[in-house]
């Protein structure tokens, strides 16, 4: 596909916008810190109050990096799934991936009590949350693909995703009946979604998952472009369909699973961002769409986080609520305006 250069300026513009949102995100919070102090604490300069430096480097900076990783990772995983399932409504949330991840985490948090002691503590380490959530979403995706191979009707796949959501809710209800209040609270807070309270170690693991997933997506972009013509055409152009499908599925479960483990189930980013990006940059070429989508995802997520903390107040809203409030109207608006979602 050609015509790459004309889109390059958009990518640069999005990149600059992303940096701006990143800085604004760090500047705003319940404590007002002057901008020069923020810059100097970021680059290790003199800061008049030590507590300011602490807020910036140990709270706001990891939170902003988490927002970037979550936004870009979910947006790219949504893009991969829309192309794989040839369905503009596909996304980690709609296809039940997030439900699968929730189920994995629910089993872990609510089931850890059953083991108790150090086994329970071991089960609740950061890595095990990631693994449980990634396994959960991977299993759901495998089930979705198994269905796709049998049923060509993409509506059926979406309905199956919804069913997984119901099953998750039911299993979580059963588990919570048997677990204590403390565990239940931990799970409920996880399911609200959160970008804050992340240790630098957690940020590192999350970034590793996200960057790995995004790098694989870049490698896949040629095959993804071929898949835009459908499986038969892609095969006739030399794409190994089974291998490519499996790679896409593993990549999306690393992205969506890893992110959901750390930030909780976050709605609408995966579904809406690829569509918003296609509105900004009218192309189907994944070599342009992937960088553009990940930048847009990061920008929107940083923006949602700014809204969630209600600048200059002490309240913080659940991030999941904000992304839904922003994402759902966007999808409706796109449908009403274009009458048809295309990809």
């Amino acid at each position, binding site marked *: *596909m*050609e*015509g790459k250069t004309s889109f390059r300026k958009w990518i640069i513009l999005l990149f600059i916008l992303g940096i701006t949102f990143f800085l604004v995100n760090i500047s705003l919070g319940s404590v007002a810190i002057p901008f020069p102090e923020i810059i100097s604490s970021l680059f290790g300069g003199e800061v008049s109050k030590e507590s300011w430096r602490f807020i910036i480097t140990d709270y706001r900076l990891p939170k902003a990096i988490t927002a970037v990783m979550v936004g870009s990772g979910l947006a790219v995983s949504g893009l991969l799934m829309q*192309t794989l399932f*040839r369905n503009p409504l596909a996304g980690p949330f709609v296809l039940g991936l997030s439900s699968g991840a929730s189920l994995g985490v629910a089993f872990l948090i609510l089931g850890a009590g059953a083991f108790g002691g150090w086994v329970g503590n071991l089960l609740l380490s950061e890595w095990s949350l990631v693994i449980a959530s990634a396994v959960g979403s991977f299993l759901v995706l495998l089930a979705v693909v198994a269905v796709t191979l049998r049923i060509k009707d993409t509506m059926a796949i979406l309905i199956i995703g919804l069913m997984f959501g119901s099953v998750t809710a039911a299993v979580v209800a059963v588990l919570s009946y048997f677990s204590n209040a403390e565990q239940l609270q931990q799970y409920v807070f996880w399911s609200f979604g959160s970008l804050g309270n992340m240790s630098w170690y957690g940020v590192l693991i999350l970034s590793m998952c996200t960057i790995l997933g995004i790098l694989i997506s870049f*490698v896949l*972009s*040629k095959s993804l*472009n*071929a*898949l*835009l*013509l*459908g499986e*038969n*055409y892609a*095969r*006739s*152009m*030399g*794409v*190994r369909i089974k291998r490519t499908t499996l790679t896409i599925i593993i990549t999306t479960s690393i992205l969506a699973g890893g992110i959901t483990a750390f930030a909780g189930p976050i709605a609408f980013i995966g579904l809406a961002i690829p569509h918003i990006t*296609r509105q900004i940059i009218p*192309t*189907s*070429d994944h*070599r342009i769409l992937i960088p553009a989508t990940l930048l847009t995802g990061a920008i929107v997520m940083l923006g949602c986080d700014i809204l969630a903390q209600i600048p200059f107040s002490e309240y913080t809203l659940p991030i999941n609520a904000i992304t839904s409030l922003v994402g759902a109207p966007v999808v409706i608006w796109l449908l009403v305006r274009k009458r048809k979602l*295309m*990809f």
Partner: protein
Amino acid sequence: MNSEIQHTVISANGLSIGYFRRKEQLPVIEGINFSLRQGTLVSLVGANGVGKSTLLRTLSGMQKQLDGNISIEGKSLKDYTPNELATVLSVVLTEAPVSKNLTVTEFISLGRQPHTNWMGNFTSHDKQVVMQAMEQTETTELKDRRCFELSDGQMQRVSIARALAQDTPLVILDEPTTHLDLYHRAYVLKLLRKLTKDHRKTVLYSTHEIDLALQMSDEMLLIADSQLYHDTPKQLISEGKVNLLFPENTVSFDPESGRFTIEN
């Protein structure tokens, strides 16, 4: 006839096609033998459900053969890697691209995939091939349109352009003239003929327009009674094979006029 004309592009030997149900084989046609030479336009005709699509799918490697051998450019189909096969064989399918939002240029350019590097970056040669493919199919003026804006006739030309961009000696088309008006049917067939004559490509296409196929193709593959006949249209008419296409007392072929008539 020079030696180039004798060059065999695709051949089938004792080929059986059909389906697997669990471990059982369900053959549709058995004992298929033919070979197609470079620069010939070959049509595949037969009634609905006789196995035209199965044959095309098997020849293009989308479906496994039950028995026998297919060889393309002197090499067995089984020995091709997917990417190698894509450099000798391109297809035009009845299905529209999944993403109708693709521009015509994007769609045609995708045909270069087997020839580009892992990122799919274009060299000046790739760009030139795409431009030529557009010129040959007269789709240059459509290049910025999106696929959902095209008429059936335009879409078919663009699909053929994509196969040309793939730049393969063999092109297989599944019912390229279906849904088209008479003008576009003739246009597509003339285009295919031009490709075989001017560009030495071997073109195999399936069709239901038997009268047009009899006029326009060099050779025909005719499927009737679970048998495949390979010959020139003239021969097939004089041997009465064309009359085998449909059950008796429904339609019959009149060799004088070259037309089918409905029997009362």
